[in-house]
């Protein structure tokens, strides 16, 4: 039987992750990879992770990223960049390549983008023209210092914790002469601020400490501004030491024009056009995805070193003679290490699929968001409530559109009309991103960290040494921080709580489930059926929990009842990841024949990836089933009979449907495990250890 011949190369990934026709992104991948596997890997191998200080050696990473175009990736061509349009997929691919070797190096790159994101998303054209040209590395003949940025949001509240809604950073009016630009005094103490050691500009979140300034805002601070600029002491992180993290103390005087998004003066009061919460919502919407992708990159990067370790485990010993199974297969003579590696690999695939799919949707969403804003502005609609009202008005149209899309012979006129309607498309994409983004950040990093532990365990004691190929032990610890970056897991679960029960998302879910069932009908031996049944079960459970109460009469599904709502959020993240994984395999199956390189051996490659999906779908079914069972049955009176559940029969049928479709999932695991024993791997890792 044909099976995976070699580890999947760029041709395969470009098809699966949908950038086979994006040469700009393919070049970005190659140049970022060169930085990761040379400069970044050498820094790790040379022990630069053992110091919290930002050393000259670590700074060489910045130079390498400048040269490779990583620094200018975020910029539009008119500012010296080379990628036109939205950059979400580009950011995720960059993060993936860097995190393949070191998460800190990836964070270092992402933090620059994070600093620029408020300006990019909400800044005025003047602000973009002021900042962006300086980000681009100097061209031949230019003599200027490159601007490097940090984003300062989180606050120094020891023993209290941090809350992005409560700002300690303050802004006051320092001078305001008649007819002149107001000068503002900004007092900002940051905590855990990445890139701060070398940043010469900061986009800082501050709250008003002056009745002449209304609300909070994000403001641009420059190192040369009048006042004090103390990058602060390095944070003593256990991980990600190739990024510079400090606790800065900044107190500078800046013109009011630095308020991101600009301001207006009403009745003698400076009113920022964009509050800090609006800006960060927009920023974090996008920048959470690459963090999720980073952890998935670690899992996929672990495959090659683990296989090499497993196969070579007994070589050199007297009992392992060349040609013998012990010599050729090593630990892979046994089922368990292969099965466990399949689990690691499947998780990495699912996470990467989820991350890249979410990035692509965000690339589309960027244009829709701008279109929505322009349209509402042209209709004189502004303000959060007015916007929400306007969007609510088209929700029925969006639902009608999704209903037609979900039918095999949906009304073409309704579909075409809705597809041309910016507000409808915005609503649909908003519903998707509202679930996919937090799911990616939550699941990729959270479960990814758990599976990274599994990957480390497959290397035995070697896994927790500095010499472990692929730096797996370090990656395991890094994954834990990634679960925290840009909002810890509880923040993602909280967001999911508010988005998973929205009608548009549920309509999407119904369509996706129908699609999965159609796929399962064509491919009964895959996990598509189990996934479809799991989605049915999850949707039923959400409906049941939403309308049910516990014995004390308290609602079960409620934002404050996190024992229920957070668990349902976890379940939906599993489902989203598995669905994206399947879509990528189907894309490979469909487009692979068009590429002669991929076409060679495609049958085995697709079979292997489908088996990985089936393994993951089975795990997903198990997780969803467990969560639903605990929530649906767990709030019944202990002395009661489960069969007294009002919808007991429905519940049983749905559970049975899931489990019936697990048939063959272990056969798929066996096939994938066999492929792991057969796949050709390179002679050596392409980066130092």
């Amino acid at each position: 039987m044909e099976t995976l011949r070699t580890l999947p190369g760029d041709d395969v990934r470009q098809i699966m992750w949908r950038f086979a026709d994006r040469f700009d992104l393919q070049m970005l991948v190659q140049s970022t990879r060169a930085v990761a596997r040379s400069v970044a890997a050498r820094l790790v191998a040379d022990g630069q992770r053992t110091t919290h200080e930002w050393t000259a050696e670590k700074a060489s990473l910045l130079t390498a990223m400048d040269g490779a175009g990583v620094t200018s990736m975020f910029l539009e061509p008119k500012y010296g960049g080379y990628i036109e349009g939205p950059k979400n997929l580009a950011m995720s691919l960059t993060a993936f390549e860097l995190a393949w070797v070191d998460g800190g190096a990836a964070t270092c790159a992402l933090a620059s983008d994070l600093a620029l994101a408020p300006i990019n998303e909400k800044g005025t054209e003047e602000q973009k023209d002021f900042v962006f040209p300086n980000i681009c590395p100097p061209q031949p003949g230019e003599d200027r210092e490159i601007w490097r940025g940090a984003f300062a949001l989180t606050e120094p509240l020891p023993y209290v914790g941090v809350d992005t809604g409560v700002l300690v950073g303050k802004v006051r009016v320092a001078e305001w002469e008649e007819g002149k630009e107001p000068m503002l005094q900004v007092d900002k103490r940051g905590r855990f601020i990445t890139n701060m050691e070398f940043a010469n500009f900061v986009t800082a979140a501050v709250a008003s400490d002056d009745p002449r300034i209304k609300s909070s805002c994000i403001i641009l601070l420059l190192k040369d501004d009048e006042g004090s600029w103390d990058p602060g002491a390095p944070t003593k992180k256990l991980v990600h030491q190739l990024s510079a993290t400090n606790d800065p103390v900044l107190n500078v005087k800046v013109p009011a024009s630095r308020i991101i998004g600009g301001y207006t003066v009403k009745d003698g009061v400076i009113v920022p056009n964009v509050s800090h919460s609006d800006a960060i919502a927009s920023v974090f919407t996008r920048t959470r995805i690459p963090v999720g992708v980073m952890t998935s990159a670690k899992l996929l990067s672990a495959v090659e070193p683990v296989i090499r370790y497993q196969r070579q485990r007994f070589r050199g010993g007297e009992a392992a003679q060349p040609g013998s199974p012990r010599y050729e297969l090593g630990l892979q003579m046994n089922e368990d290490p292969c099965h466990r590696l399949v689990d690691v690999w499947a998780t990495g695939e699912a996470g990467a699929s989820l991350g890249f799919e979410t990035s692509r949707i965000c690339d589309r969403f960027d244009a829709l968001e701008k279109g929505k804003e322009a349209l509402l502005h042209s209709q004189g609609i502004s303000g959060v409530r007015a916007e929400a009202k306007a969007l609510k008005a088209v929700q029925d149209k969006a639902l009608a559109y999704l209903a037609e899309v979900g039918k095999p012979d949906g009304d073409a006129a309704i579909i075409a009309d809705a597809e041309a309607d910016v507000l409808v498309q915005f609503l649909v994409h908003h519903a998707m991103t509202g679930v996919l983004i937090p799911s990616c950040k939550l699941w990729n990093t959270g479960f990814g960290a758990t599976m990274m532990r599994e990957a480390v365990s497959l290397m035995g004691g070697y896994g927790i040494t500095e010499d472990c190929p692929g730096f797996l032990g370090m990656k395991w610890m890094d994954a834990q921080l990634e679960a925290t970056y840009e909002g810890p897991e509880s923040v993602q679960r909280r967001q999911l709580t508010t988005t998973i029960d929205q009608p548009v998302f549920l309509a999407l879910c119904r369509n996706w489930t129908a699609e999965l069932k159609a796929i399962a009908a064509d491919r009964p031996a895959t996990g598509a059926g189990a996934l479809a049944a799991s989605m049915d079960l999850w949707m039923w459970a959400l409906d049941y929990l939403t309308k049910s109460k516990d014995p004390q009469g308290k609602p079960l599904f409620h934002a404050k009842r996190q024992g229920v709502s957070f668990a349902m959020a976890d379940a939906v993240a599993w489902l989203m990841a598995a669905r994206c994984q399947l879509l990528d395999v189907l894309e490979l199956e469909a487009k692979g024949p068009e590429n002669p390189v991929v076409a060679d051996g495609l049958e085995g490659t697709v079979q292997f990836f489908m088996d990985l999906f089936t393994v993951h779908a089975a795990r997903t079914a198990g997780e969803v089933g467990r969560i639903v069972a605990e929530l649906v049955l767990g709030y019944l009176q202990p002395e009661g009979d489960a069969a007294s559940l009002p919808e007991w029969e429905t519940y049983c049928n749905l559970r049975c449907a899931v489990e019936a479709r697990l048939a063959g999932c272990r056969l798929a695991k066996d096939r994938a495990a066999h492929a792991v024993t057969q796949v050709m791997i390179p002679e050596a890792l392409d980066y130092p250890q």
Partner: protein
Amino acid sequence: MSQPYHIVVCGSIVPDPLQTLEPALGPAGWGLKNELQLPAVLDPWVAHALFEAANLAKQVPGSKVTLVSLGPKAKLQQVMMQVAQKAPFELVVRDGPAGGFVDAAEVAAVLAEAVNSIPGLDKSRLLLFGGWQSASRGAGATLQILGELLGITEQFQGVDLCQVQGDSLLIKERIEGGSYLVSELANPPAVLGWATGSLPEPPNNPQVGMQNMRLVMPALQKAQPAKVGAEGVTYAAVELPRQRRETRVVKDVPVDDIAREIADWIRS
């Protein structure tokens, strides 16, 4: 200042040397196991030639560089995503095999046709660059045959330096004993088979890459198929050069000790 040159660099791709390279007999003859699926790189010998060509073109205003490549176009495209960022060049492609089991004369014939097809090529200003050797086959004959087919009699092999000296070029060729044969080339055309050259690999420049890709992609799309192989040749035995990879991770060893160990190993 010298008149502009048209530097044509001939070369193709080879499997990434870190990969497991295992000769295998397939339906189409000998090749490497899973060769098509292995990641490829620009042949390192050709890469030196390309970087030297770009450097020379920069020194002589008006010069241009064309890379002529015979290889599977889908794999070439992948490699171009990296190579195109290194230096400005135009690409001419012939779609065919690039492995180590093709005949040098057949490859040279295809390349000669491809070079002759370059629009506006002024052979009186032609510098034909390529690898002295190849990472896929070490015959070292392709470039020489190609030069002969194109009627270029000035040939330099094992070149490490090509320096502009007014209207002429100073060329250093490797000869035995670590010495160089130094020549002065008054006028092109000439063939230069490069050894390692003296330039480091240029850093990636995505702007250059984007500029190149506007020409590279159409060139790949219109690549003509080329039939090359080694018809009539029978391989009695095929094996990889013997190699030893005995890696030890050793820390804190003085440089002198490392040097002594290497010297002992060479003596042994």
